[in-house]
């Protein structure tokens, strides 16, 4: 990163306003094109045969009858996707997940695929494929997978991160540890210690648009892919590597995206569609059904977490210890590691230790879900912190303020913090009217903090000045939450022109250099930085052109309010030249005018949020309704405040669904029982209150405008905030997410039973 990306404290005209989004009309009128909306001449329908077994060896696959069916143009198995990964285990796992090779590892694992003239023929063909399975023992539960005698998924899986190296294989693929100080000495200083085990069930991101793509491979080896994705450059890279193509010969065009939340950072069916197209020599459209999305894309982990925290009577945390077991599906990930890094990150602790265990199970491959792994860890830690506050009779906000991390604190995951924003979010929560509002009957209030890292990454943008002086901005990060509006505002700000003079689009992979994905809350943070630099480069050229038009030294030209202005006594009386005037003269002053930028946008800065939640629990049924919810989070600088608020509200809404309803339910047979939105219920409008937001603006010192990523942190506190609210409503500590009506009712019944037993004993 170069010095000119530092925050300068400038004032803004466009940034911070709330204009209409440029993609809005297309989206509400149905004009916007999503993954399944792309159609090509001669296009075939692709469909995937999936394993009904959670764990089996593939003895053989007979595709002959399917190939003979009229209308079938290609049938593929793993033989059509040979292993070109050259020892890259991460890439091999992607390949094996896209198309099973020797074994299937979960209900829904792809084993073959067809391309046919229509969907009916494709379905018929799938039924004609005969797979001979040797069914193997399976395990889907996180605790059962680490128990003695559990079926082991991979005989070559010896736990990494353990010295000496284990001699026996297990389902614990990796162990990681973070922390500092002397934990046991810290517990010895505690007046109160609470130790509990928590569980959270597996959830899906629940994006409304399923995975969809159209693939077309030409006989000359070049190809095109239209796809809904959070990262078209990453998809290009992975697909090209898996298919043995030159990367630049595969052009990937991103469509509009109907939600991703991390689930579209990974290829699932795209390499299959490309392989089908290559074999059929025709374009192939492949759209996952909802059933397939649930069974065979990437949900987040199910977890089992042990937490132990000690505290003095005066409310100072003396030690914290946590062991976090996260399911990873059948392939190793870093999900428990992220949980271990984030679990205690909100607090200033002298003695802390976290251990993360990546657990392999016969479930779909875990992938990122919005601040991946942090919400579950926060649920466990924030629940115990809340219980400790109650135990010592201290206000939960005050307890957190007393222990909050600050500049100079050694974080629980290692480094010393620079300036951070948890303190202001807690102070804002303490002063928020929500905290002192009266509660009704059967209502409880909870609050919780959350932490996420945020990051930047490789980014480039093009800013082209049209002959009429309007501006075309091309960015390489996918717009998942209103980024085109925000980036147009940034370009307008820098150039000094109105917002409606800028049109921002997302370019395809042939248009721009490599861009990392829109993940890690990086889209607006990174692309705004590159947009500012592109605009500044364009302004340099605009000033040169104005100097030519005036025939004065370029040093005597300044750029102010969208115009070139001549400066100094000698030239100061020249009338300013507008951007439109300079653009119109461009053919004779040197040709087209553009600004480009390529950079690595590091320095995103960590992010904190504090949430407050009121719930009402029906004691007869256990049904819980969130009646009031407030999100407080630092945005650095809110470029388009409406979309920042939208991110805050969206994260909270997803967290509410996760906390109260959503879970993958597996049967004894290892099959997913609720692969659809009727049985896997995400919240709808009637389930939610209006979610209040408070944007704090503490500038990020590593961004010219002070911008921070805002997309992920808002999903971290809700599980704990709701858990604390439910627990506070009835004095029953909830330790299992989702806190569905049956679980709450059971907890209430058990508490009542315990209470009556103790009364009888007394």
């Amino acid at each position, binding site marked *: 990163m170069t010095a000119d990306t530092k925050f300068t404290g400038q004032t803004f005209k466009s940034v911070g306003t709330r204009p209409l989004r440029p993609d809005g009309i297309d989206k509400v009128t149905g004009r916007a094109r999503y993954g399944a909306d792309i159609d090509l001449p001669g296009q075939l329908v692709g469909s995937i045969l999936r394993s009904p077994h959670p764990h089996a060896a593939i003895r053989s696959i007979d595709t002959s009858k399917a190939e003979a069916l009229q209308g079938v143009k290609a049938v593929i198995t793993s033989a059509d996707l040979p292993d070109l990964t050259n020892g890259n285990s991460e890439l091999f796992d992607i390949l094996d997940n896209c198309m099973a090779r020797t074994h299937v590892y979960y209900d829904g694992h792809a084993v073959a695929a067809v391309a046919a003239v229509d969907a009916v023929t494709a379905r018929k063909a799938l039924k004609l494929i005969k797979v001979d399975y040797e069914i193997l023992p399976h395990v889907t539960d996180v605790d059962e997978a680490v128990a003695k005698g559990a079926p082991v998924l991979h005989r070559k899986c010896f736990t990494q991160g353990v010295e000496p190296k284990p001699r026996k294989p297990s389902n614990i693929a990796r162990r990681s540890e973070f922390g500092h100080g002397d934990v046991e000495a810290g517990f010895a200083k505690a007046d109160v210690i609470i130790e509990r085990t928590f569980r959270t069930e597996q959830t899906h991101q629940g994006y409304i648009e399923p995975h969809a793509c159209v693939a077309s491979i030409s006989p000359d080896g070049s190809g095109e892919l239209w796809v809904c994705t959070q990262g078209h450059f990453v998809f290009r890279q992975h697909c090209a590597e898996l298919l043995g193509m030159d990367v630049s010969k595969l052009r990937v065009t991103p469509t509009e995206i109907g939600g991703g939340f991390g689930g579209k950072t990974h290829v699932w069916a795209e390499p299959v569609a490309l392989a089908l197209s290559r074999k059929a020599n025709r374009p192939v459209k492949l759209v996952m059904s909802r059933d397939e999305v649930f069974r065979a894309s990437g949900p987040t982990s199910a977890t089992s977490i042990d937490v132990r925290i000690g505290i003095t009577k005066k409310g100072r945390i003396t030690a914290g210890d946590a062991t976090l077991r996260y399911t990873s599906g059948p392939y190793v990930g870093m999900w428990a590691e992220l949980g271990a890094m984030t679990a205690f990150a909100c607090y200033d602790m002298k003695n802390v230790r976290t251990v993360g265990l990546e657990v392999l199970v016969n479930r779909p491959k875990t992938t*990122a879900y919005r601040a991946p792994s942090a919400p579950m860890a926060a649920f466990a830690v924030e629940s115990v912190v809340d219980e400790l506050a109650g135990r010592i009779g201290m206000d939960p906000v005050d307890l957190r303020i007393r222990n909050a991390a600050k500049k100079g604190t050694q974080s629980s995951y290692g480094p*010393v913090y620079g300036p951070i924003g948890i303190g202001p979010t807690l102070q804002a929560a303490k002063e928020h009217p929500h905290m002192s509002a009266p509660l009704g009957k059967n209502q409880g209030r909870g609050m919780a903090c959350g932490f996420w890292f945020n990051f930047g990454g490789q980014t480039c943008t093009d800013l082209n000045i049209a002959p009429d002086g309007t501006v075309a901005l091309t960015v390489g990060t996918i717009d998942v939450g209103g980024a085109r509006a925000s980036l147009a505002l940034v370009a307008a700000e820098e150039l000094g022109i109105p917002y409606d003079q800028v049109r921002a689009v997302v370019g395809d992979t042939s248009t721009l250099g490599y861009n990392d994905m829109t993940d890690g809350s*990086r889209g607006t943070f990174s692309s705004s930085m590159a947009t500012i630099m592109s605009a500044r480069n364009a302004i340099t050229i605009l000033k040169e052109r104005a100097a030519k038009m005036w025939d004065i030294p370029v040093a005597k030209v300044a750029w102010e309010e969208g115009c070139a202005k001549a400066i100094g006594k000698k030239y100061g009386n020249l009338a300013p030249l507008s951007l439109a005037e300079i653009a119109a003269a461009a053919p004779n002053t040197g040709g087209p005018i553009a600004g480009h930028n390529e950079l690595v946008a590091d320095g995103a800065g960590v992010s904190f949020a504090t949430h407050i939640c009121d719930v009402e629990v029906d004691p007869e049924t256990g049904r819980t309704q969130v009646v009031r919810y407030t999100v407080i989070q630092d945005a650095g600088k809110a470029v388009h405040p409406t979309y920042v608020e939208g991110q805050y509200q969206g994260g909270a809404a997803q967290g509410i669904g996760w906390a109260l309803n959503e879970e993958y339910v597996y049967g004894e047979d290892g099959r997913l029982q609720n692969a659809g939105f009727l049985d896997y219920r995400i919240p709808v409008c009637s389930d939610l209150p209006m979610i209040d937001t408070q944007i704090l603006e503490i500038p990020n010192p590593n961004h010219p405008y002070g911008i921070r990523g805002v997309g992920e942190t808002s999903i971290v506190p809700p599980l704990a905030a709701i858990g604390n609210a439910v627990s506070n409503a009835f004095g029953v500590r909830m330790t299992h997410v989702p806190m569905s009506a049956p679980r709450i009712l059971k907890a209430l019944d058990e508490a009542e039973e315990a209470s009556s037993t103790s009364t009888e004993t007394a």
Partner: protein
Amino acid sequence: MAQHEVKLWSALRPFAQGEASVRVKARTIRELFARLEADYPGMAPFIRQGIAVSVDGTLYRDSWDTELPEGAEVFLLPRIQGG
């Protein structure tokens, strides 16, 4: 050239005889990684796969030209994934 105490997260410690930190002379992240690869070859696969470097609390994942100021806290961490 300044010598830094480079702190390691747990996965890297086995390649440094179990130590929680190593001392490395380096002006930039690039030089730091080159030195680590030479002195602790077991860390090379991690560096190739991606390591995040915290310099005085700011995380750098790709900016290998970032300078390491004298006395700065340098902490190596896993390359974080996001959603």
